[in-house]
């Protein structure tokens, strides 16, 4: 039996409907539990969220609030204990490892905090990696446009060790965009960068949403980074506790202070 059955909130309700057609990804009644019985720990506790197409969402919250778990579960890297995760209308629970891998390759882009690139491949190969893995050519014009946007044209034959941290993250952004995924997940993408380079990366991400119509979900601690998003979800103790639209850094800071109290 699912530990969720102890919860009064969801057991009596009918199963929630699948997400609407303008959602790039969503979770419905999502819970992630480690351990069982008294020692059960809820990393996610009955979370339902939608990420609309063409929207830039930031997820904030203290360490252990479940924000990374939420992202991993929607991205098909981790499994929910109960509830459903959807990407592009597909229920991830129905997919085996192979299908999940293909889904990640074709529908999802990733930007990690560090170690984003395969050290043995050139910048260009890293950018095209998901396409190469799928043995696809991709949209050459689109890729050229991305490379132009992130200013990497003269760095394409370099290997990651020959690139600066900022350049490496730009390659990672370009890779995430290369296959025109339905949604891009970014996990603290500027966490390892100085503020100037960080700003540059965030600007690229913003432009990818505004100019190119991409969907991005970003996990971050940084109020300044979060202010680039269209909306912010605040997580605490495995639950979505608040949401903010049209954020600014100042508003975010204030909000975090209020949460702290």
């Amino acid at each position, binding site marked *: 039996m699912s530990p969720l059955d102890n919860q009064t909130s969801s057991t009596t309700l009918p199963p929630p409907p699948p997400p609407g057609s303008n959602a790039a990804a969503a979770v419905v009644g999502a819970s992630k539990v480690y351990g069982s019985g008294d020692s059960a720990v809820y990393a996610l506790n009955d979370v339902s969220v939608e990420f609309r197409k063409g929207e830039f969402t930031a997820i904030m919250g203290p360490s252990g609030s479940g924000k990374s778990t939420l992202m*991993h579960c929607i*991205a098909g*890297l*981790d499994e929910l204990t109960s509830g459903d995760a959807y990407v592009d209308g597909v229920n991830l629970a129905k997919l085996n*490892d*192979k299908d999940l*891998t*293909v889904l*990640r*390759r*074709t529908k999802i882009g*990733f930007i*990690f*905090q*560090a*170690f*984003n*690139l*395969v*050290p*043995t*491949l050139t910048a260009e*190969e890293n950018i095209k*990696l*998901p396409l*190469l*893995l*799928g*043995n696809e050519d991709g949209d050459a014009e689109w890729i050229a446009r991305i490379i132009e946007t992130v200013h990497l044209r003269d760095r394409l034959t370099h290997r990651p060790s020959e690139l600066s941290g900022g350049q490496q993250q730009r390659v990672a952004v370009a*890779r995430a965009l290369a296959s025109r995924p339905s949604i891009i997940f970014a996990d603290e993408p500027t966490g390892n960068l100085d503020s100037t380079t960080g700003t540059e990366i965030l600007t690229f991400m913003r432009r990818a949403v505004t100019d190119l119509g991409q969907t991005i979900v970003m996990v971050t601690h940084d109020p300044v980074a979060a202010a680039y998003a269209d909306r912010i979800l605040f997580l605490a103790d495995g639950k979505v506790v608040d949401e903010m639209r049209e954020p600014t850094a100042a508003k975010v800071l204030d909000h975090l202070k209020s949460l702290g109290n």
Partner: protein
Amino acid sequence: MFRIALKGVLARKGRLILTSIAVVLGTAFLSGTSVFTATLNRTFDNLFSDVFKNVNAYVRSTEVVDTDFGFQERQRIETSLVDVVAEVPGVDAAAANLQAFARIVGKDGKPLGNEGNGPPTFGSSVVDSKADIWQMSQGRFPEGMNEVALDEASAEAGKFVLGDTVKVITAVGSQEFTLVGIANYGDVRSPGGATFALWDVDTASSLLAKPGLIDAVIVVGDGTMTDEELTAQIQAALPTGKNLETITGAQITKETQDDIKTALSFFGILLTIFAFIGLGVGSFVIYNVFSISAAQRQRENALLRAIGASRRQVTLSMLMEALAVGLVGSVLGLLGGIGLSAGLTALLKAIGVDLPSSGLVVGTNTIVQTIIIGLIVTVVSALLPAFRAGRVPPLAAMRDTALDTAGKLRVRLVLGGTPLLGGVALIGAVIGGARTELLGLAILFIFIGALTLGPLVARPVALTLGRPIASLRGVTGRMARQNAARNPKRTSRTAAPVLIGVALVTAVTALAASIQAEIRGVFGEQFTGDFTISSEAQGFGGLSPSLALDVAKIDGVKQATGIGQSVVEVEGKGRFITVINPKTVEGIFDIGLLDDAKVTSLSKSGVLVSEKTAERDNLTNGSTIPAKLSDGTQVDLVVEGVYANDQLAGRYTVSSELFEGTTVSRFDFGVYILKTEGTDSAALRSDLQKLVDSYGSGTLLSKDEYIDKQAAQVNQLLGLIYGLLFLSIIIAIVGIIITLLLSVYERQREIGLLRAVGMTRGQVRSTVRWESVITSLIGAVTGILLGFVLGYVVILSLRDQGITKFELPISSAVTILIVAFVVGVLAAAYPARRATKVDVLAALNTM
């Protein structure tokens, strides 16, 4: 610090086991060899002390001809001595002993046993006496010219029962006998798998030696005096001036045991060489594993340094780990070796070598030797990585790890290039006429050079070999290619075992191909006949000399000649000499006589010598060579000619007439046949075959078949070397597996990332597999190149032996490449599976 080292070892049991495996393989073969040889020695010791347990004295001739090859011919003694000895006070029983070549022909017309390669086939005298070793288990002792007894194993193998007719081939031809008895040799059915036909003493003498002659007298005392006293008594009673000696039972036991040990020691030495090559190859694996583990632990070691551990302490802790690994590996290797030797013993039994079982002999020296050598090899292999670990600066704790460069390029280029060029220069010098012995040094230099330069060439070679894979296999191939090239030191160390094994095999294959080409050339030129009847018995027995005479009588045969071999003592040393029939050999075999000498005029005590022998010993026509035949006959051989082609004839060639009137048993190793012009070959062949069948021994071959067969003998050498290849392949596979496992462990984050952005498990596997294939191919390709050089060098060193053709074994090289490919795929199986099991989230979370 010791405790830290110990904890380090225990905390990483996986790595401990991996490293130990490399030690286990090397030491297992060593201890297996040691246990096996000790067991074999003990078995024969037991067998002969059992056989001679009732023997108190042994009378034989003092005249003996020894050769370089441990082959010994002792002069025979008169049968009448048995009665003389039997009369000596203190003697209870005396029996004749005679043993020589004889082959039992099975009911299907084929001789029993494996001619050439199997245990020997004997005929022997047997007598109903306490002093005889043979005892009848069925029937009775044979008597007279028409009765024979067989050892139990042969009777069973040939499905013979009492009353059957048995055909036996001896020096005087083949004859049929009635089987009247089946015998045991002491407690065994047949000693060491040999076959025995047994006759009464007089029959045995006339068939195996000459009437009236036996090998020795076996004496059993009546217990009234010690063996020494008995021996002295008998010696005193023997006629003087006949070169006779009496030794005690203990002495003959010891002598026989020592003879067997000497014969077996070649085998033991060979196995030990294999074991040490295996250990040497294994040490590369050990060195590699310690290097990788030191690189992976750079952070940890740097942290230890940062918080105050000295260089010495870091180095020592690594060496402690090596000691633990060496100990675990050696103990496991010892146990593995005991198992291996039990397997070998069982294998011997399975192929029909019936030995009395005496249990495995695991001597203290085997245990001590295995463990000490295992420890030394492990610790020495770990020295360099340990010192390097000590040199890690504390600041490295803050850096990312496991970046390995090829070190200081220029230094390495000099360190590796110098011996390589030196080796090449030495080869050049030898081609130019310098001493052949320098080639050994050249090989050593070239190997050292190649292994030192390995890390420098590993990257370009990996990239080149990986190119087709990268273009065929897409991005996984591309990554495999880059992975193989990214740690050039590691890759070259991993490929080194493959390189060494492949180089040795290629060299030997090249040598074999060249020898075969040489043999074909030599036989093609010197043998001008149409058919041969050849015997595979090498140096022991063969074809009866009467066969050649009978062949000559067949219609359609223009000429037939028998060629044999005997042992003659020249200047105190036994020499193999070629024995021909001067009247019939002309026109069939051409040994290239110089200066108008004629083979047909070779006289009874004449000798033809090779050009080299003539030069070395200053011999010209008319020189005399004092010689002693194996029955003790002294002759002064007169040189009557010098010949150029010594590949077949060797150093001395004499006439078969020389042995007339002596007691030397003579055999031909081949009969060479020239047909009358216009005779139908097929018809002649079937006539010849009938004759061969009636003799029951020998193989009839056409000229071409004969030459093929001579060339094929070289393949036996190859078989031996392929055993070695197998050993180094196993070690190479283990080396690749270990390296890949460590690389996979090291690249967890990368694999996690790749899986996250959409690499399937199949693609992960494929990447690891191709990396493994590339690594294995690097070893194979460089090994083949090195092997060609090595093969050329070996052939160069044999130029004085008349081997001059150098043939590149291209087809073998292709086979080796295919094997290397398969090795790569096999070795990757487990590491690839481990790579697919990498937990994506865990890998990502360590970022």
